């Protein structure tokens, strides 16, 4: 099977800081691949580089065979690479429903003049969008908070809404930036189930960045380990767990 995402020798250097050096790996549809590593390993930079928020200094990134390095975040997103954000990618003043609708933006057809004149077609398209958004929320048992502004939701609920929103965009490749942060244990389990389901049933390729190793071990198919910007290990969870270099990276220095 062809890789969905291909990284070749990716390096991102800021003046004085080598955030990523020569990182290469492939990611596939239907696979859950975790990126782990100690603080400062370059995990967030990796995500930023793939989604266009950081420019690679060297190397190449291919999505479905097409080069995406150097493109703007918007262009990369349109091609099918979607992401969540570590520090909240939601729109705080909008309700959960409106956030999901924003995710459905490209799918709601409504010409400008139709909208301002309040044409039937425009209103119909809007209604369809709303129905889809509510059913998406319903799938995650989140329908009850549809009309609350997301800034009033708990951290865990916000994360879930963000995932639903990203799902609404029907992404072939999904980058999840620390999806478990701030979630209570039962919610973490739920999140894990959702991630596995997205990969297994929907065939979405998932890359996730996470600090908590134990969660990652049980939910991923493949683990990539970064340390100081370099890839030091890649493989199945059992293999990585035994890897000496990995243990050193996490425990070896203060």
């Amino acid at each position, binding site marked *: 099977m062809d890789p969905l995402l291909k990284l070749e020798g990716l390096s991102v250097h800021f003046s004085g800081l080598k955030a990523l050096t020569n990182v290469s790996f492939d990611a596939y549809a239907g696979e859950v691949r975790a990126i782990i590593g100690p603080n400062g390993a370059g995990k967030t930079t990796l995500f930023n580089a793939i989604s266009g928020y950081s420019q690679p200094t060297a190397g190449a990134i291919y999505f479905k065979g097409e080069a995406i390095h150097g493109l703007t975040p918007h262009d990369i*997103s349109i091609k099918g690479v979607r992401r969540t*954000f570590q520090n909240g*990618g939601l729109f705080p*003043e*909008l309700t959960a429903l*409106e956030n999901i609708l924003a995710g459905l933006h490209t799918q709601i057809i409504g010409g400008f003049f139709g909208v301002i004149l*309040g044409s039937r077609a425009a209103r119909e398209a*809007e209604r369809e969008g709303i129905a889809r958004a509510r059913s998406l929320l319903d799938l995650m048992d989140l329908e*009850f908070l549809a009309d609350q502004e997301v800034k009033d939701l708990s951290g865990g609920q916000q994360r879930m809404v963000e995932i639903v929103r990203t799902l609404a965009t029907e992404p072939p490749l999904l980058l999840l930036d620390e999806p478990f942060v701030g979630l209570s244990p*039962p919610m973490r389990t739920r999140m894990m189930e959702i991630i596995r389901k997205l990969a297994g049933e929907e065939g979405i390729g998932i890359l996730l960045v996470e600090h908590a190793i134990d969660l990652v071990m049980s939910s991923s198919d493949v683990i990539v380990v970064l340390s100081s910007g370099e890839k030091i290990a890649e493989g199945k969870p059992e293999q990585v767990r035994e890897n000496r270099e990995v243990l050193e990276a996490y425990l070896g220095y203060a």
Partner: protein
Amino acid sequence: MNEQTSPNPPSNPKEVVASMTRMRRIFYVLPVIALAIPFVANEYLQFMANAILVYSLVTVGFNVVIGNLGQLAFANTAFFGLGAYTTAILMVYAGMPYMLAVVAAAVVGGLGGFLASVTALRGIRLYYLAIITLAFGELMRWTYLHADGITHGSDGLLMPQPSFFGIAMENETVKFYVFLLITVVLIKATSNLMRSRFGRAIVAIRDNEAATASLGIHTARYIILAFVWSGAVVGVAGAMFAALTERVFPESFSLTEVIVHFAMVLVGGTGSIIGSVLGAITLTALPEYFRQFPGMEELFFGIVIVCVLLFLPKGLVSLLRRVSPVFNERYYRD
């Protein structure tokens, strides 16, 4: 933080939403009631009512950029002046009928909005945007003042009597009905715009620009849209202003005017159409009154803004919203 269920889960969300829709019909009743105003108001009050309509439109337009898009862009007086002068110039020199000149004012205002948006698109934000738009406004005012061959500079450009499809707008009452029609149509159009994917995109840019791009929303397009819409609406308000004051002066579009518009947005509520109208209603009478005493206008508006920022940052509309959720303005249409 533990997962919480919503404190008051609605019994049936669809029912609540449907009843809101029914209650919102109240807003359609208001313009109908307004039709009766000329029968109870004297000439002076009628003039005030007309001024309120003009400023409502100005504030609604301004709020789109300041409140919904969240950009501190002070080009409002530039759009206002462009609209007023376009109308006057076309009527004086090209004999254009008023309503056509109003359309032209919208186009020119929209173009002005486009120009203003260019800087926002190049990544200019916050203070830089504020400064360059202020500069733009002042440059326009300098132009009105110095292009006196056309604009008659500080003497002001006298408007020929406007007419509405043959009906002469010769007194405040006729003007009122024309202004009411224009205002209601444009406010409704703005409301439609906000309660659609366009409005959501605009507010999304305000709330989290990075995330907006990640959803495949072309941020540049919607920034331009917000500015152009704002420029067009305020341009039309300028056309109305020209008909209201009957003589267009450069001084009407100075930095003090910016403060007045700004205060109306803040007092009413940023990002809210209802708030914009409230702000205009509350504050319109005052510039007129204070203009007699030099300095009082600035002093007053400055104090108003300070007080609003300290004590009621979300504006008057936030008080209304505490009373009833019918005043909530969401960004979708049910």
